């Protein structure tokens, strides 16, 4: 990518290195004391964690603990919620996306998002859903668009199912297919970071499997953050895991370590299934 700025090594990273991790780790993003308020209520408080480039970071934790809230803070989606207010920093390649003068539109162009509920554009065809971002950003050449559609749908493991009916409405797909369509749509604009909020919660095991496979492929080009309720999934797909509890980041570290020897007893209780 572009040139790398000198980095301050976060303490967690040192721990990771001590644990024998690869030395080529670079944070693509970094949350620094990120807090999101809904009115007076804290949705998620004082979160600091790195998001390493070309790795999959999983966010786990019981329902309502603030995973979605944190994820949405990473691409300024809270800007649209009048009651929500964000404090702290979220760095993308060293630059705070909340700094004055930063255009949230640019931020979101670089940091894509897949939502918890599938949300294809209701009036558009499958084809047009995938290229919605590209087209509205001014890409017109048909072969470029065609290519983007096939590539993105392949990546989202949907191509084979829809290649013969690309002109059908996006809404005519099943829920799981719609979610993969949304993934394809997000991938089509080639974001640097992809935030996924429980992308497989509506999918059958086979599509889930293909999305999980997709992730290991994806991380060659993209940095992925995935919220999941599925422990096995987090263990399977992620390189790093953050555990949230009641609006706090309780533990962050390499997935293998978080799952085998968590430092916090609350994490251990959760992953061993004693609550949550």
């Amino acid at each position, binding site marked *: 990518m572009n040139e790398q700025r000198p980095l301050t090594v976060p303490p967690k990273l040192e721990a990771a290195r001590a644990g024998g991790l690869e030395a080529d780790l670079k944070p693509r993003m970094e949350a620094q004391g990120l807090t999101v308020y809904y009115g007076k209520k804290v949705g998620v408080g004082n979160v600091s964690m790195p998001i390493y480039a070309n790795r999959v970071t999983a966010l786990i934790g019981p329902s309502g603990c603030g995973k979605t809230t944190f994820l949405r803070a990473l691409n300024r989606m809270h800007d*649209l919620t009048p009651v929500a207010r964000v404090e702290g920093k979220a760095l993308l390649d060293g630059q705070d996306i909340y700094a004055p003068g930063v255009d949230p539109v640019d931020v979101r162009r670089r940091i894509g998002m897949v939502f918890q509920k599938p949300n294809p554009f209701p*009036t558009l065809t499958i084809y047009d859903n995938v290229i919605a971002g590209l087209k509205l950003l001014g890409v017109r050449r048909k072969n470029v668009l065609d290519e983007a559609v096939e590539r993105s749908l392949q990546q989202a493991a949907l191509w084979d199912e829809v290649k013969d009916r690309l002109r059908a409405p996006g809404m005519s797909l099943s829920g799981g297919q719609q979610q993969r369509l949304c993934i394809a749509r997000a991938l089509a604009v080639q974001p640097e970071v992809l935030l996924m909020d429980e992308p497989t919660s509506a999918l059958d095991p086979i599509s889930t499997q293909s999305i999980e496979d997709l992730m290991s492929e994806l991380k060659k080009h993209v940095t992925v953050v995935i919220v999941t309720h599925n422990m096995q999934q987090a263990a399977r797909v992620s390189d790093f895991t953050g555990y949230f509890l009641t609006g706090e980041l309780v533990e962050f570290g390499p997935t293998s370590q978080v799952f085998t020897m968590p430092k916090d007893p609350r994490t251990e209780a959760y992953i061993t299934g004693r609550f949550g």
Partner: protein
Amino acid sequence: MRPGGNLERRKLFDRFMLGLLILGSLLVVAPLVLVLGKVFLTGLSALNLAFFVEPYRPLDEGGGGLAHAIVGTLMMNLLALLIGGLLGLAGGILLSEYPDHPVNPFLRVISDLLNGLPALLKGLVIYTLFVIPMGRFTGLAGALALALVMVPIVLRATEGVLKLVPWSVREAGLALGLPRWRVILSLVLPSALPGVITGLMLGFARAAGEAAPLYFTAGGNLNLSFSLGDQVESLALTIYKYAGEPSPVRQEQAWAASLVLTLLVLAAGLLARWATRKR
């Protein structure tokens, strides 16, 4: 109620209620059918080629036609649709998509005011603001008055249907890195298009039927004119004037004008539906 019990009686009751519903619906629709029927039957018999191609002629020359009023109606209403439609759309978008915008409270007051203001007074507003300074009645002033009739209707309809578009559509668009205006114009508005069009058509139909605001603005004109800079006649104005005339020729022309106006509104609605049909 016992499950499965007394099936016969329940069926009968169901029939009875259904009958009541149908009767009620008929009662509501009947006046509409009667009015439309009368307009169609009486109007149709008064329609002829002269009606469409000839302008006003004195009665002793046969009375002529209403070409001048048809042309005037089309010119003024299309311009009014352009102005009033755009203003109404813009206002509706602002209220629905930028709920915290500082101009919104004013916008809402103005819209409510316009909505409650009799059309005649809208004509007076334009009379004061345009006709007096310009020193004469013009089709342009008439179109502006009709636009004032349309604005609150279009605005409310637009705001209403845009608010029905799920929030997730906007989020999905924004998350792709699209600017807000782009999301609204290219994704939200199309999702609500049928409703928006209906709003525009409601406004158009309402304005096309207004005679009162044109009195002090367009001023009426017995000659055929293709310029909005001149005084302009409209069908609604003609109906109002002719309906009270003793001459049967004029009264027939009023009926025919009613029919043409009705058909015009109907055709506009169908055209809009067709233009925005699902492809």
